[in-house]
């Protein structure tokens, strides 16, 4: 049942709204049409009734006057009965000049407020062109009966009209359901189901007609729209394919580039290592003269610069190629700190500096922290190498402490030195690329000016921050602070 109703569109809101609107309009129209119809009927009947009054003068006045004149009272009764037989005539009274009186109907009840009243003077024409009043006829018209009839008629007519309107509305619902709603639903389903895979054109199941109506126009518009959309989708699809291909090519190029960088890095470093080793051997050879020793030592320094320049360039290229992979692993920072200290000693030895390297690891550090050990090591060793490079006397200190950052545990690693310090005006630019505190330094110490930029980028990549610490303490002139964030281990390895 419900399915049937649904099939004919009874469940669709459009149909229902249409029906409700039709019912309201139908009801109003029924009232109006019924009123008009019955109003017309009432006026017609009233006119008819009034006409009866008018005709009395033409048709009855003369015979009645004759009957009274001739004292034919039977005839008077007949005529008055005939007059009173009209249902609209409520009261008739005839008073003759001779004192007789006839009445029909009840003057108090029905004719007290007559709708119409005529008083006729019955005049008998004498031969000598004179006339004599024989009586007065008073006829009162009441339309109460007409009104009652019309009123009774109103309800039947109104209900009939209403029923007609309702039947028409329901018929309209079926018709709308058949002719419009089902097509609209089909259009909606079609549009819903249209996608890249389902490209059937929209066709409605309608009786053929030469003339195009609104539905045909909608179907055509949807067809054209789908055609256009499909073309655009195809174009877009091709573009996506092209882009993906370009992206894959770019990624491949990038991977080739970082592969190349890694290979180059290894391939260049290996012979350079050998060169540096041999230069060292020459410089430390026991039987060598002073001049070749100085040459070898100078060549050693030059090759160190070359090495660091190359390492920095490769690192920066890797950062720019997005080829830096950050691996956060649980790390024993105590052991790592010892490694840093050890390699710092190595650097000190390499740079032949007579300074103290100190390591200060807080006792309350967690046993394992989450960090990218190799990149942190790279940053720390760069900072330590810088510190050693710029410090000729005194000490370089590596300090590791617990800290908090926004309420979360963090680790602060400070690399401090007692060297020249960084001039105030250079502090802001120290992490920019190709920057050294002053250009004289470049000549004095070499370096690409990339080291701190790399450190800062690496720190950023692993969610850490590298800053120049303004809180100079304990006689240190330069303090770098590397703050490692998100160091807490979510799961402690068992």
């Amino acid at each position, binding site marked *: 049942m419900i399915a049937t109703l649904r099939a004919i569109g009874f469940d669709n809101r459009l149909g229902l709204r249409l029906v409700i609107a039709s019912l309201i309009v139908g009801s109003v129209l029924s009232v109006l049409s019924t009123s008009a119809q019955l109003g017309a009927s009432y006026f017609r009947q009233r006119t008819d009734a009034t006409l009866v009054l008018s005709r009395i003068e033409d048709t009855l006045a003369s015979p009645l006057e004759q009957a009274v004149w001739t004292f034919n009272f039977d005839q008077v009764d007949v005529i008055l009965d005939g007059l009173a037989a009209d249902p609209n005539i409520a009261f008739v009274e005839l008073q003759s000049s001779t004192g007789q009186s006839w009445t029909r109907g009840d003057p108090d009840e029905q004719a007290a407020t007559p709708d119409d009243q005529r008083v006729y003077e019955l005049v008998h024409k004498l031969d000598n062109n004179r006339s004599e009043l024989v009586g007065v006829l008073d006829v009162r018209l009441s339309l109460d009966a007409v009104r009652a009839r019309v009123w009774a008629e109103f309800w039947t007519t109104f209900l009939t009209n209403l029923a007609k309107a309702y039947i028409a509305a329901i018929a309209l619902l079926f018709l709308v359901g058949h002719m419009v709603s089902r097509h609209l639903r089909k259009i909606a389903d079609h549009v819903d189901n249209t996608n890249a895979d389902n490209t059937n054109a929209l066709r409605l199941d309608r009786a053929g007609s030469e003339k195009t109506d609104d539905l045909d126009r909608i179907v055509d518009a949807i067809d054209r729209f789908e055609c256009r959309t499909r073309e655009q989708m195809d174009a877009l699809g091709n573009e996506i394919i092209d882009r993906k291909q370009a992206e894959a090519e770019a990624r491949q190029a990038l991977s080739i580039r970082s592969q190349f960088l890694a290979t180059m890095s290894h391939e260049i*470093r*290996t012979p350079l*290592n050998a060169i540096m080793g041999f230069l060292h051997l020459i410089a*430390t050879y026991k039987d060598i003269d002073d001049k070749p020793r100085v040459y070898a030592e100078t060549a050693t320094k030059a090759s160190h610069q070359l090495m660091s320049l190359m390492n920095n360039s490769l690192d920066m290229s890797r950062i720019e190629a997005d080829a830096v992979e950050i691996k956060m692993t649980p790390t024993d920072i105590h052991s790592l700190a010892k490694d840093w200290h050890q*390699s710092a000693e190595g650097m000190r030895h390499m740079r032949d500096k007579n300074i103290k390297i100190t390591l200060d690891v807080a006792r309350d550090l967690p046993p394992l922290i989450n960090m990218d*050990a190799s990149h942190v090591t790279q940053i720390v*060793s760069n900072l330590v190498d810088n510190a050693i490079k710029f410090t000729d006397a005194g000490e370089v200190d590596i300090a590791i402490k617990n800290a908090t950052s926004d309420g979360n545990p963090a680790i602060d690693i400070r690399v401090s030195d007692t060297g020249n310090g960084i001039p105030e005006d250079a502090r802001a630019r120290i992490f920019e690329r190709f920057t050294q505190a002053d250009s004289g330094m470049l000549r004095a110490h070499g370096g690409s000016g990339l080291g701190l930029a790399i450190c800062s980028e690496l720190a950023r990549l692993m969610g850490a921050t590298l800053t120049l610490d303004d809180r100079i303490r304990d006689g240190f002139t330069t303090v770098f602070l590397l703050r490692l964030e998100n160091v807490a281990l979510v799961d402690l390895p068992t």
Partner: protein
Amino acid sequence: MTYMHKVLLIEDDEFTRFMMREIISGLGVEVEIASNGDEGCKLLEKQPGEFGLVLMDLHMPVMSGIDATLKIRNEVQDPPSKVPIIAVTADVTYHNSSRVAELGMNGFTPKPVSPGTLLSLIDQYCAA
């Protein structure tokens, strides 16, 4: 100082090998060389107990330092399976004691190797 044990240097680059051999022998320590992990393992098997220290390059053709360490620790006859192995690498990923310990090595030294570091390693492992 006299040294009881030899050093096994496993390094694929000829220049580096020669350079390191010169440095080590300059310290008065006997050095044997291998150009990849596989050769290194064979030398260890042939002369059990002779070596006090293995200097292991990590990136090598035929057999990498990591694979060679795994093989030495698991397959080579005792006592060479317990021989100290130090990773010699420029790769900062391995400049991490815990990391190399996980791979079965006793420590690491970064490239370029400084003679001072080599000396302290040899003192530590090859002394009488």
